[in-house]
């Protein structure tokens, strides 16, 4: 006599002992117990009570006390094949295939004891992010920065900066010069390397000022990157000297190793690490 035993996710399962005839329904017991936590089922009093009643009627040696031990007894019987668990409802929809339930939550969890008047999210103040304002602020910062670099370039060209340093500076302007609004602020007519310039210095003001730009954050960034560029240039020169020593004293690898490791140390010190 089949009996409703386990109700999981609203699906009713019936259990049979080994020799009971129950048609050709698939035994979903092992899958059911593999995917379930008995510690969840323990809180389902109705389920445990039905299981206990049924087991007592079927197995004479059943003498379990305690809800968990009752469920463990049932699980052992299922795993040993002495109990089969099949879906009690007709299985037209899934053609007999039983989806093993992965989570068997007790029914007591399905209803909340009360509905909270608000959630944490709803209690937060509504503050829409001013994306346009942020965008324009960002653009003005980059404008100022690229403007400052572009202004600096002509006077840098007159100095002893290496070709690499000038190219780096020109690249910085180029990066910030992508947008059409930025283009208006920067004159890129003279960012070629020394000796290759075909355009005169565009009449830009000499680079003398940093402290009146509107944002301190961008300023410190510019200063920082300027120092980093200097460190990089210094390191390039150090390594070049190392290569010179290597060219003459290449037979003594220690010389080059010592020189390059010291150059790396200087570079780290210069960067502030």
């Amino acid at each position, binding site marked *: 006599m089949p009996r409703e035993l386990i109700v999981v996710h609203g699906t009713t399962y019936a259990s049979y002992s080994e020799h009971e005839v129950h048609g050709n329904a698939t035994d979903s017991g092992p899958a059911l117990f593999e995917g379930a936590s008995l510690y969840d089922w323990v809180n389902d009093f109705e389920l445990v009570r039905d299981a206990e009643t049924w087991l007592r009627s079927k197995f004479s040696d059943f003498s379990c006390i305690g809800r968990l031990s009752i469920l463990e007894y049932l699980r052992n019987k299922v795993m040993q094949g002495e109990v089969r668990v099949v879906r009690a409802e007709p299985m037209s929809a899934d053609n007999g295939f039983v989806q093993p339930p992965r989570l068997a939550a007790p029914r007591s969890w399905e209803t909340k004891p009360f509905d909270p008047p608000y959630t944490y999210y709803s209690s937060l103040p509504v503050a829409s992010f001013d994306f346009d304002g942020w965008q324009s602020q960002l653009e003005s910062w980059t404008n100022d920065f690229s403007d400052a670099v572009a202004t600096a370039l002509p006077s840098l060209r007159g100095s002893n900066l290496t070709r690499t340093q000038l190219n780096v500076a020109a690249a910085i302007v180029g990066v910030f010069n992508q947008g059409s609004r930025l283009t208006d602020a920067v004159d890129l007519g003279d960012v070629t390397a020394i000796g290759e310039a075909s355009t005169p210095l565009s009449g830009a003001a000499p680079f003398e000022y940093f402290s009146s730009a509107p944002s301190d954050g961008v300023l410190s960034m510019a200063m920082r990157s300027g120092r980093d560029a200097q460190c990089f240039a210094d390191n390039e020169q150090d390594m070049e000297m190392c290569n010179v020593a290597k*060219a*003459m*004293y290449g037979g*003594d690898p220690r010389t080059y190793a010592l020189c390059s490791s*010291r150059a790396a140390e200087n570079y780290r010190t210069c960067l502030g690490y």
Partner: protein
Amino acid sequence: MAANDKVFITFYDDESDAFKYSWLRRSTVEPFLDRAPIDALPSPAPGAPITNEDARLLGGMAFMSLVGGRQSLRDRLEIV
């Protein structure tokens, strides 16, 4: 260090297109030497004779250092 120790310096002068040299009293440049990275030349070995080859190596390194990034001088380098 001896009182009259000398430091030999050499540099390239752009205007006259000449390599120039000078001797300074070591006490004059000592504060700078203290802060400079200093390595020992690999040759000559301590106690070993100072040969033409040692002179070639040191001179070559000096010239190549002074040439640095100047392309016009690089083109003139024929040190092997």
